[in-house]
């Protein structure tokens, strides 16, 4: 079948082992939400929730006292706040990329990981959205950034990249949320149907939106899913491009760089895949999902990380080249200072984690080794945080006039908020695992041999024939 062509082209015939059936998929995925939470889950949840509570406290303290409770200063007016923001936004990229772009390109292996990745996107974007909110000096006036008609007749400044950010990120969040939710509807219906308690029936019944699995439902669902995927696809590229404009449109050496949009997008995909990998490896082991998330999936993801990591490495090199080639002494200084100045350790951590560590994946043995890929994915998560730290702090701390140079050091509040955002992410993620099917059951079933419920070209054929077939024909 032509549908399987991309997979066949990369030498695969089956995405899932032979013994996997529709029932085993439903059982293994639904079971997680239906049984009592294992003790390990509780430990993790309490730890994550404690960190998230710390985030709440730290934010309350920040609001009471002011931005001065952070280490930010003049000249480093942005530091961990925006570093964390960009880091989380980057992590939030893989979800949509996996769900939407791979969907549009008919990469069927995505079905095993897309739910995960989408959930991760939502939670990462939630974490990211905290930062632009709390990093302003007067949080209670943050709504000035929104184009709300007001008696003063003042609109936001549409020239400001920060405003573009507001639109880009909120659009991205809304579309991702919709996309995720739409994909969840059939699976919610499965859970509803399996529910034994009244409460579960009610709750899942509401969120399943009356899904009965009828042909019309499937048709509408497929259309909606495709449309949302098509809307999401450009967003994957636009969001991080717009985030990069925060820096690229400024006049600061080290920020004022035309390579930023593609470089940021590559970096975002890179970090997103790394985070998906980290989480996937944990859940796969904990919940025994080896049959659904196979080594083939992992290997494909590692290949993408190798590609994007190398792209990012190229961007790092290109920045240095341009700093030299442009002949701009300020630019030149900033880059030399990045590698050799007071924050050299951050720069070299970034290079080690982001450029060197994914190169291990050239080796088939290493890219199919679970421990190696886990360690590398953690490295990439760290490295990508450092990348944003390097871009923001090392560019700012020594800019044009040496008289204003300074250093940045974080405070306990900085650390609590960063750790707290990770806590919040895991809190949400752990809740997700417990209450929402973490694998897109309906879609995985779709890639089982013999189950091809939706094929665009089938529909087209039927439309050409002027004939509406109620059920898609088996693929083989």
């Amino acid at each position, binding site marked *: 079948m032509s549908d399987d062509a991309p997979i066949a082209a990369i030498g695969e015939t089956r995405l899932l082992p032979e013994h996997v059936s529709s029932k085993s998929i439903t059982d293994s995925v639904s079971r997680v939400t239906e049984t009592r939470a294992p003790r390990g889950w509780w430990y993790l949840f309490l730890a994550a929730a404690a960190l998230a509570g710390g985030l*709440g*406290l730290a*934010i*309350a*303290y920040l609001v*009471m*006292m*002011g*931005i*001065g*409770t952070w*280490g*930010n*200063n*003049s000249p*480093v*007016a*942005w530091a961990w706040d925006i570093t964390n923001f960009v880091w989380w936004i980057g992590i939030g990229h893989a979800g949509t990329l996996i769900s939407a772009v791979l969907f549009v390109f008919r990469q069927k292996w995505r079905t095993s990981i897309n739910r995960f990745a989408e959930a991760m996107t939502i939670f990462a974007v939630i974490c990211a959205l905290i930062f632009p909110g709390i*990093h*302003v*000096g*007067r*949080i*209670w006036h943050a709504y*000035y*950034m929104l184009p709300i008609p007001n008696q003063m007749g*003042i*609109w*936001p*400044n549409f*020239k*400001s*990249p*920060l405003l573009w950010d*507001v639109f880009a990120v909120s659009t991205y969040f809304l579309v991702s949320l919709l996309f995720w939710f739409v994909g969840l509807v059939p699976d919610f219906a499965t859970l509803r149907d399996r529910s034994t308690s009244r409460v579960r029936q009610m709750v899942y019944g509401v969120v399943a939106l009356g899904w009965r699995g009828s042909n019309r439902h499937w048709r509408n669902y497929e259309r909606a899913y495709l449309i949302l995927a098509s809307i999401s696809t450009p967003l994957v590229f636009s969001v991080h491009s717009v985030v990069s404009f*925060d820096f690229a*449109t*400024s*006049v*600061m050496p080290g920020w004022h760089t035309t390579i930023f949009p593609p470089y940021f997008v590559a970096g975002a995909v890179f970090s997103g895949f790394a985070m998906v990998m980290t989480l996937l490896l944990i859940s796969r082991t904990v919940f025994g999902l080896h049959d659904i998330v196979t080594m083939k999936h992992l290997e494909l993801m590692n290949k993408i990380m190798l590609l994007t990591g190398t792209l990012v490495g190229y961007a790092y090199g290109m920045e240095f080249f341009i700093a*030299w*080639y442009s*002949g701009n*002494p300020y630019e030149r*200084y900033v880059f030399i200072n990045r590698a050799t*100045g*007071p*924050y*050299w*350790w951050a720069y070299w951590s970034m290079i080690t984690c982001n450029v060197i560590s994914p190169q291990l994946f050239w080796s088939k043995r290493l890219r199919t080794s679970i421990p190696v890929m886990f360690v590398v994915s953690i490295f990439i998560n760290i490295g990508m945080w450092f990348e944003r730290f390097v871009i923001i702090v090392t560019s*700012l701390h020594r*800019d*044009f*006039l*040496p*008289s*204003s*140079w300074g*250093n940045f*050091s974080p405070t306990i509040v900085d650390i609590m908020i960063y750790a707290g955002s990770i806590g919040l992410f895991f809190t949400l993620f752990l809740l997700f695992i417990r209450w929402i099917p973490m694998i897109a059951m309906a879609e995985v079933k779709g890639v089982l041999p013999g189950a091809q419920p939706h094929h665009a070209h089938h529909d087209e054929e039927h439309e050409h024939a002027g004939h509406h077939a109620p059920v898609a024909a088996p693929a083989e």
Partner: protein
Amino acid sequence: MSKRKPYEFAKPEKSGKVFWTSLEAKADPEAFQARAAAEFPEGVVPDGLVNSESLTLKRRTFMGVAGAAGALLGLEGCVRRPKENILPFTRQPEYVVPGVALHYATVVRSAGEPLGLLVTTHEGRPTKVEGNPQHPSSLGGTDGYTQAGILDLYDPDRSKGPAKREGEALVDTTFAEADAALTGLAGKLGQGAKLRVLTAPSNSPSFLKAQKDLLAKFPQAKVYSYEPVSSANRRAGTKLALGQAADVSVNYRRAKTVVALDADFLGTEPGAPRASREFFDARRLSSPRDAMNRLYAIEPGYTVTGASADHRLRLAARDAGAYLKAVAAELAALGVLADIPAQGEGDAATPAVSFEALRGAVNGAKAPATVPAQWVKSVAKDLADPAARGRSVIVVGTRQPAEVHALAFALNAALGNLGRTITLTSALDTDVGSATDGITALAKDLSAGAVDTLVILGGNPVVDAPADLKFGELLAKAGTSIHLSEFRNTTSTKVSWHIPRAHALESWGDLRGSDGSYAIQQPMIAPLHGGRTDGELVAQLAGARFWRAHELVRGTARELLPGDGFEQQWKNALHNGVARDYQPAALGNVALATDALAAAARTLTEGKSPLSSGNLEVNFAADPALYDGRHGNNPWMLELPDPLSCVSWDNAAYISAATAKELGIENYDVITVKSPEGASVDIVTWVLPGHTDNAITLHLGWGAENVGRYGDKVGFDVFPLRSTKSFGFGDGFTVAKTGKRYMLSQTQETHSMEGRPIAIDASYEEYKEKPDFAEYRSPVLSTLPLWTEVKYEGHRWSLVIDLNACSGCNACLVGCQAENNVPSVGKEQVARGRDMYWLRLDRYFVGEDEAAPQVAFQPVGCQQCEEAPCENVCPVNATAHSPEGLNDMAYNRCIGTRYCMNNCPYKVRRFNFLNFTGQVPETTRMMYNPNVSIRMRGVMEKCSYCVQRIQESKIAAKRDARRLRDGDIRSACQQACPTGAITFGDLNDPTSRVAKLSKLDRQYKLLPEVGTQPRTSYLAKIRNLNPEMQG
């Protein structure tokens, strides 16, 4: 290779300058990086205005935060403002229109000299001081001390009433009781044999008259004068040279060659504002054809005078006399010390002067070993230049002994400078001794038990008297001691009576300058906490019936002002701020006491034991911020960075890199400095490039107790090291490491320009060759602007800063702070890089010699870019362009994203990281300028070109139906600047000064290649190098 044409900064053509990195980075890059990463060197946790305590989470705070966290979840931003009622005047005071400021002329004493002021008052509250252009010692400028004086007035820790000793404690009492006690005391004094009065050297005619009256009533009483920083030695030197007391004032405007021998005449010495104006007037260049004076500075520490010098010599203070003697010998060889024949007839006659004895005394004098030969030869040659006869001046620092002053006086006379660059006026106070004579005599009397009643007028002698006198212990020997003081300082805690002293802006007074100008000091506000003046207390003691200062001052004025129309003269004097009708008493015949001079010159020899790291010279200098400690509780002054070291909220032991290396100490090390008398003081080290080797500069006035909430024990008290022998400076000091570290906060941590064209300078020769050198140092911008360029039809405001006239004195910083209600933030916040200066003074070290670099100062405020990068990044339109091209801040709109701060290439934007204004006491709030909003936490702020002044002047012009005139609007920094380096005005008015200055050849913009099109222009600094001194 890159095909693109490299974008290199053009270097000055002749002197290939080595540009500086931070000294520590150079010495030990690894250790520096470790420290840089840590930011806070290990050591004490600092605290300041916003203290660290408020930032640490305590249990109660934690509960509060936890509660708030809960509340935040539910509701956000429901802030109720407290309900407060205000009441209108029922009877409107005359002239007082709410919102309209009134200006009064007055005079205050600053660094020992009067400084004429115009004071702005709002509804009866003085809020800002400015120089009085009519007063000769101001000429429109001020100094930082005076600008900050306004904050001292509203100091919440000022003494709020009299107090008397009961047992160990001082108990508050009333003025009535204090007056009764004073009257009772006066009745028991008899002839006053056991009455002693200690006062600061006074230049107030009314006080001196009151003092005379007191001595008339108590003929056996004695009045001693003492001030920890005083110009007594200069007057003693003049007396030595002339045989009679005379006041000396220097006219720098006429001087072509200035030799400043250990004299910080542009900084901390008396009369600096006027000296600055005149000195820089003589080097104001509008084209390469203009003449320029030349300054040689010889000094141990690094002062702003040294920074302004064309040539600077590092020399221990003790060797200054020997150096001057060598110059005298060289001058003698050049024939300058020739006898002067009698000249003129009648009153204008000058008698013949024979320098024979002096020639003999200086014959063969050798310069100290560390002085390069050309420093004697070339300086003497420059001075002896026949074209410069009568157009040079040798000025000696007040801490130098009288003999050096006397020799300098003689040389000035020989160079024909008397009556030309040096004016003599009859002295008001003819009681002349060295700086420590008064206090030494008093200590002697006290220890002899000869003092029953001691009246101390102001000051803090228990702390600041020479340590070997042990004044604190001796004070107990006086039966009754009375201390008149603005603060209940350490001396107040040891006396039997404390009486609050009125601030200069609260009281009547008068001051006569050393140039013979006479001005009346009038009160701007009734004393906030009661309070008496020195004159009042003395008159009360003398039993005067009319002892109120108003009567005293008017009575004195009636005697001093000639003619009949006293009332009119009095009014004029008050109105103008200076009594023009006053003529100082004639000086009489001036004849040099040549034999005494020769004897004095013989005593000037190089120090006997050579200086080394085991025999260090310590010199004590007035602090550029606290002076002698009198501004010790003034947050502006505590925070004000030292102009050379940029250290804020502390003083330090300044030392040269070579000596530090020899001693094995580095920055932040706490060292013990031991005096030859055995006293020791622990103080933090700061390596100051350009400091003299084997010498330490210690700034006075820091680290005292009982100062107040801001300044208590801030910094290091160095008075214990100071004895009568080492009052100005002394050798034989040693240093030991303590192993402790101490954090210093600095407003600027990088000392180098990194080879960038920022504070541009050139030599006079280079300037003549290529007058527009400055503009070519930066590449010309070739990119197009992002947005359509605005054509400014109305006003186009601009500021021009002449770096060639900037002495680095900091007055503009304090003036800006006072005008714009800029908060002080405390030591920890400064260390974190959160100082709020709208206008900052950048200081860079330049030059080839690392041990003796030159300094480039550059005041940087908002450049008011026409293509402002801050504006298009603000998401909420809180910073926008005005139709006049100003980059305005709408504080109400600002949400504090700080994006503008990031995108400002000049880093002039200041963010309220914490609530910097919330903790300001009620009293201090009275000082706020009502025309400038107080900014809340979380809001960005920056220099506005004093937009409130622009608006005020525009309104006034509109009301009078006239056009704005050039000079109507003067920014606060411009007004404070004593040298006239800053000019504000309208570029669209082709006749305005600013339009003319911005077209000068030396003009350049800061970072033009960024494309910001700044409105502020700089004029490059020119150094008038002596070709013979090079190489």
